[in-house]
């Protein structure tokens, strides 16, 4: 009785031209979504999927051993960290689409996501190379021709490893060793994506290089790995911005960023992160600054459930300079544990740390800083300034500044302030026709102005907008 109807109405053909269109030649190897959890099999699969050289594969396996053996940090928000369920996280997801070179080739749904993040505008503004991370793999990557002509390499980290294995092997994990901390070890085992930048000697990259990151699948860990090398006398500014949609279960973001400024080089690394409120953002960022070089971290943290991030600069060459400028906004039930680290180990080095935090509702912002001056770092200068702004009676701010000064010949300035939005200030502004919310927002924007004025205009606008949204979220 059963009649098999075989109607070929064209549906069967859908996807047949997929490989031709998108360059997938081996559907068998197409890896959609692996199992949850991490082990040597997962690491092996990631490395084989990426067709990596043996040294990297071995590096990953060793890193996994370190991760498994290392205890969780016993400082910071240990309670929240203990709630991370490592077995319930996807460690690698490859997007449906392979990497694209031109904007026209990027699929519409991905474009839509980027549109909502405002990427095309920023791209038009800067017309620099854009390396945008969508889920775990870089899907879109463009390099402006004149950057290429100058010999500037701006790739995703996977391509960097493929195309410039020598440079990568020489510098990879030299600034942040695998065993630095548990999360750096995890990243080393399962890293995927991130940016790789090499600027040749004497080259000044006039326009900021930008990358956008976005977590997009539930329970997906994102472990990007960024390596920037500014060769002698070169200059580069890299900008990274992040947003993430809200998920019902927790997600982990654990990046590793290494910067190397060789003699007389200049690197500025600007980040604005706005993670959804269930994300653990545990990032290791460190730079090494050689003779007369300058490294600047400009670091803005909003959102997430818990952020632990302490951009670090090792001033290893005489006359090297480091600056870390950060803001953190801790909304209700968020903990921003952020800060800065500077290690002075050469003479005439100087550093400046400016940290600003805002705590709202039951939010908690902690400044955790370390300045270490070795005996060799004579005639060095250190300046640390921490400002905390508390918006509500239940808001919380803590400061954990550590100074280890082993040299007598050092100039040190240290200031820390905790303030509230004064009632008198609010009255002054409301008597000019502003509502209390508008007044509070204006005061906050003023408070972080030393940070926003360092940002390109559209980022400054975006940041003020993000804070406005954060403020709205709590009203009523």
């Amino acid at each position, binding site marked *: 009785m059963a009649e098999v109807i075989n109607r070929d109405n064209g549906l069967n053909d859908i996807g047949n031209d997929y490989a031709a269109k998108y360059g997938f030649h081996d559907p068998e190897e197409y890896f959609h979504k692996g199992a949850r959890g991490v082990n040597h099999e997962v690491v092996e699969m990631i490395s084989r999927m990426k067709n990596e050289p043996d040294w990297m594969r071995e590096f990953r396996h060793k890193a996994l051993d370190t991760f498994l053996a290392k205890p969780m940090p016993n400082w910071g928000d240990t309670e929240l960290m203990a709630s991370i369920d490592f077995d319930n996280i996807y460690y690698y997801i490859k997007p449906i689409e392979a990497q694209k070179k031109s904007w026209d080739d990027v699929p519409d749904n991905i474009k839509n996501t980027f549109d909502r993040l405002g990427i095309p505008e920023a791209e038009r503004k800067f017309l620099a190379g854009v390396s945008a991370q969508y889920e775990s793999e870089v899907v879109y990557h463009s390099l402006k021709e004149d950057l290429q002509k100058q010999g500037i390499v701006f790739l995703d980290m996977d391509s960097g490893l493929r195309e410039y294995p020598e440079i990568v092997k020489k510098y990879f994990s030299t600034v942040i060793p695998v065993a630095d901390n548990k999360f750096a070890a995890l990243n080393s085992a399962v890293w995927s994506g991130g940016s790789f930048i090499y600027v040749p000697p004497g080259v000044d990259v006039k326009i900021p290089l930008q990358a956008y990151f976005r977590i997009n699948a539930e329970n997906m860990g994102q472990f990007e790995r960024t390596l920037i090398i500014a060769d002698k006398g070169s200059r580069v500014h890299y900008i990274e911005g992040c947003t993430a949609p809200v998920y019902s279960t927790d997600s982990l973001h654990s990046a590793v960023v290494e910067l190397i400024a060789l003699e007389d080089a200049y690197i500025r690394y600007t980040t604005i992160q706005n993670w959804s409120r269930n994300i653990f953002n545990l990032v290791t960022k460190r730079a090494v600054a050689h003779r007369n070089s300058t490294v600047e971290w400009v670091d803005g943290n909003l959102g997430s459930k818990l952020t632990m991030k302490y951009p670090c600069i090792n001033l290893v060459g005489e006359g090297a300079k480091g600056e870390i400028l950060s803001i953190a906004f801790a909304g209700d039930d968020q903990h921003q544990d952020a800060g800065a680290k500077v290690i002075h180990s050469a003479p005439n080095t100087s550093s400046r740390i400016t940290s600003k935090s805002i705590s709202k509702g039951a939010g908690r912002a902690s400044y955790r800083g370390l300045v270490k001056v070795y005996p060799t770092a004579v005639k060095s200068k250190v300046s640390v300034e921490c400002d905390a702004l508390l918006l509500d009676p239940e808001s919380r701010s803590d400061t954990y500044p550590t100074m280890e000064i082993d040299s007598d010949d050092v100039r040190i300035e240290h200031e820390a302030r905790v303030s509230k939005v004064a009632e008198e200030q609010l009255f002054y502004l409301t008597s000019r026709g502003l509502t209390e919310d508008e007044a509070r927002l*204006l005061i906050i*924007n003023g408070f972080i102005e030393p940070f926003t004025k360092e940002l390109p205009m559209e980022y400054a606008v975006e940041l003020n907008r993000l804070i406005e949204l954060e403020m709205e979220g709590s009203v009523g």
Partner: protein
Amino acid sequence: MADKKILFSIRDIHVSVEGKEVVKGVSLDMQGGEKHAIMGPNGSGKSSLANALAGHPNYTITSGEAFLDGKNLLEMDATARSLAGLFLAFQYPLAIPGVTVANFLRTAMKAKFGGDEEKLRSFRKELKSRFELLEIDNSFATRYVNDGFSGGEKKRLEILQMAMLKPKVAILDETDSGLDIDALRIVSNGINASATSEDSVLLVTHYQRILNYVKPDKVHVMMDGKIVHSGGPDLARQLEDQGYDWMKPDNAEKVEA
């Protein structure tokens, strides 16, 4: 003279600060275009009255009425009072670090007049002409509001705000204090140029000298939370010569006689 409309009217206002009564029943009527001065010694309640009328949360109006252009001010918060046309020039203007004068003024103008492109353009033009009026350097626009300002700069910024926000009723709380003679002249010119023939200005001051530039129609003397005497412009000069003692409530009969 035909009756002009009463623009600003307060009736038997009582003000408490932290439970202590500091203004004990003050009444006042101002017509559009009028300038009044409230004078009095320190602690007489002048500034408390000014702050309470503007809606300062620490100054509670426990009884009385206040109407601006027929609208009941006491039903409004500070924001609404400002939007209704009331302005208070602060005795001690507050610093808003990180917020530029231009940004602050733009935000306040937008709150009051709305913020379309055209208004924004005319805002710039107007700001420039007001800078000239108040002899303010252009660099003022990019400095942070009252942050590191001298006393004179703070007072100029207050009058600049008055000039831009065009209130119907401006209460100037000791705007003349701390000004040298040149600054006093400039600030006074600014006040005179900003208040149209429709607007009212209430000057709160210790000293008579600003009244040489901003001519009051009426002068009220406030002591111990009350207006004890009202008169014409001559009263100010008389106070300058004879001080306040002769009109203390004990001697009030003599005054009225």
